[in-house]
């Protein structure tokens, strides 16, 4: 059906036509085709902060001071000025338009990090219902830390990581949670996942998943710590039985395969080196064994199968560590396992990744997927599920309904076309699966909900700009946003950096883009890798 593009016609149509069932928000978003941030103010005079992002409800702009010790929060407002001429629309903007303060009001500046700590400027999570923000400060990283107290060898250690929970309305610090001599992946909030009021923090060093709850009053409450122990009272049970066992007999420690009991926690000997695997590792290995056992009817074939598929790789399975975690719903976690080297290296592509679905309540592993392997349960099954149900991996929660509208290949035909074409172009299917599954488990709140990134509204170059908030290589050419629907016109351009462009082509420049989720307002920040002040442009609708 041919829809008129004229905004007045659209408004009249809105008055008389009810949208098709379930599409009222989609229809409202179509107005963003008409209201675009087409005007650019280059090189805005702004304070020398590193701007992080807009909160998902658009109420706050989060930024950190250059020395990474203070948090500064702004409220987005709008430029207002008066004009006495006749043709005001075409008059140039007043000089105050070039000031950052015309668009943003500073609410407060709170020092979060003390002397030797720094705020992790890539880390920020927003709990929308209560307008709480979660920030992290940490001391310096220590490589080659000795593996003491149950730590994994090879994972660096940070002396102190503090998570601060702030009420963003007034900047009051509500609660803190400290982790000492631990290592949590804070870059891009990779080691932490927020779902509604539940927080999952992965301690790489001690191999624990801490589940916390953010209460309405603002306190962080520990719910459980999964890793060595699965249920809350496992530790108590094991300690009490350990005392009883130590006096009974001393069996020679040996590597028994696994305890095939489904629900019982294995009895552990209080030996110095634990021959028994406990907690989630036990659950994982027993799930794998049971799966392999069930494949064969015949007893001898079963033993052969177990030898080939399990015992041969036993040490590899035992050495798996938790890399990353996300919630699938309030009780289920998607956990990514891998080797120690892969956890700390920046490029995890070369290291195989294993995925497991874990039910926190029943402490059972529901599913396990290995890298593409024709012999056993492999990642291509996980890839098929990801292809069909991508949105469910994004965990839509009731408190953030905008998540349903971020374009993914499950809710948008253009994104699906893109996925299909890259799948057909892939030279090797296992490599393609690996590349796609690298993004699982998803980083929390890493995609901008701005309608300008909606693939059914606009077409843009994904390599230069996209909903994911990562830094990109900066180009001189403006980034074009073209309408998807007829008449396929160019609606607006985003050009980072100075208006005249860069004359010095030698220095590498990176850009980041902050789009307001509701207003036609965007910031583009271009910086060089040396500590020169960033060039900030404001793109807005005049």
């Amino acid at each position, binding site marked *: 059906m041919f829809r008129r593009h004229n905004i007045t016609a659209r408004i009249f149509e809105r008055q008389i036509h009810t949208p098709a069932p379930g599409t009222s928000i989609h229809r409202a978003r179509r107005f963003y085709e008409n209201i675009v941030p087409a005007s650019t103010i280059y090189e805005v005079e702004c304070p020398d902060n590193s701007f992080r992002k807009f909160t998902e409800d658009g109420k706050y702009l989060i930024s950190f001071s250059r020395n990474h010790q203070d948090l500064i929060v702004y409220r987005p407002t709008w430029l207002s000025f008066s004009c006495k001429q006749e043709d005001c629309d075409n008059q140039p903007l007043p000089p105050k338009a070039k000031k950052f303060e015309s668009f943003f009001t500073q609410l407060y500046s709170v020092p979060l990090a003390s002397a030797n700590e720094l705020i992790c400027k890539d880390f920020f999570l927003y709990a929308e219902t209560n307008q709480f923000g979660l920030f992290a400060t940490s001391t310096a990283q220590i490589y080659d830390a000795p593996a003491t107290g149950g730590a994994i060898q090879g994972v660096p250690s940070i002396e102190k990581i503090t998570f601060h929970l702030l009420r963003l309305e007034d900047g009051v610090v509500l609660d803190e949670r400290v982790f000492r001599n631990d290592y949590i992946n804070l870059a891009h909030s990779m080691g932490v996942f927020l779902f509604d009021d539940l927080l999952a923090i992965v301690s790489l060093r001690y191999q624990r998943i801490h589940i916390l709850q953010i209460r309405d009053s603002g306190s962080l409450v520990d719910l459980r710590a999964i890793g060595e122990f699965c249920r809350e009272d496992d530790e108590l049970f094991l300690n009490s039985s350990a005392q009883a066992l130590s006096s009974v007999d001393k069996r020679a420690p040996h590597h028994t395969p696994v305890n095939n009991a489904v629900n019982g926690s294995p009895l552990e000997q209080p030996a110095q080196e634990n021959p028994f695997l406990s907690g989630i590792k036990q659950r994982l290995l027993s799930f794998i064994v*049971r*799966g392999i056992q*069930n*494949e*064969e*009817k015949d007893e001898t074939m079963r033993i052969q199968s177990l030898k080939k598929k399990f015992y041969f790789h036993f040490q590899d399975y035992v050495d798996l560590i938790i890399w990353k975690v996300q919630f*699938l*719903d309030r009780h*289920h976690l998607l956990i990514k396992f891998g080797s120690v080297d892969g956890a700390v290296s920046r490029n995890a592509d070369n290291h195989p990744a294993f995925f497991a*679905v874990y039910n926190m309540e029943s402490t059972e592993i*529901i*599913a396990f997927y290995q890298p593409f392997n024709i012999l056993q*349960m492999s990642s*291509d*099954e996980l890839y*098929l*599920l990801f*292809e*069909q*149900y991508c949105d*469910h*991996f994004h965990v839509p929660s009731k408190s953030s309904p905008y998540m349903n509208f971020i374009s993914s290949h499950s809710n948008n035909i253009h994104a699906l076309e893109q996925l299909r074409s890259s*799948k*057909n172009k*892939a*030279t*090797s*299917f*296992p490599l393609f699966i690996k590349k796609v599954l690298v993004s699982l488990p998803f980083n929390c709140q890493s995609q901008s909900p701005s309608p300008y990134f909606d693939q059914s509204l606009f077409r843009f170059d994904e390599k230069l700009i996209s909903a994911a908030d990562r830094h990109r290589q900066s180009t001189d050419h403006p980034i074009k946003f073209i309408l998807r629907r007829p008449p396929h016109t160019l609606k607006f351009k985003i050009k980072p950096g100075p208006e005249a462009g860069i004359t010095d082509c030698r220095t590498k420049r990176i850009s980041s883009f902050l789009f307001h989720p509701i207003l036609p307002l965007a910031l583009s920040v271009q910086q060089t890798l040396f500590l020169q002040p960033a060039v900030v442009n404001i793109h807005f609708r005049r």
Partner: protein
Amino acid sequence: MGSSWDVGNWPSFDPHNFSQLRPNDPSAPSKKTPITYHPTHERTLPPPDQVISSEAKNILLRQFYQRGDEKLRPKRAAPENLSPEQECKHPRASFASSSEPPK
């Protein structure tokens, strides 16, 4: 039939339109009862103890559980059929099966 269709009072092009319409007298309610239909058999009645509730697990988790149950259920039939593709509805099953590694 009710008074809301009192179109005799509404403006129209021709004043003689709707002039023969007699509005319903509200003091004497209409004796017509709507026709009711009764089933002639009991084949479609729900079981008396049926409770309809929504599934707590979302569809993705249901898939994980289903595949996990398939793997862990002791097999009595041929062991080579590992995938439960035939049982559950896959709207793009044909697409899924065409995802062979290209040569």
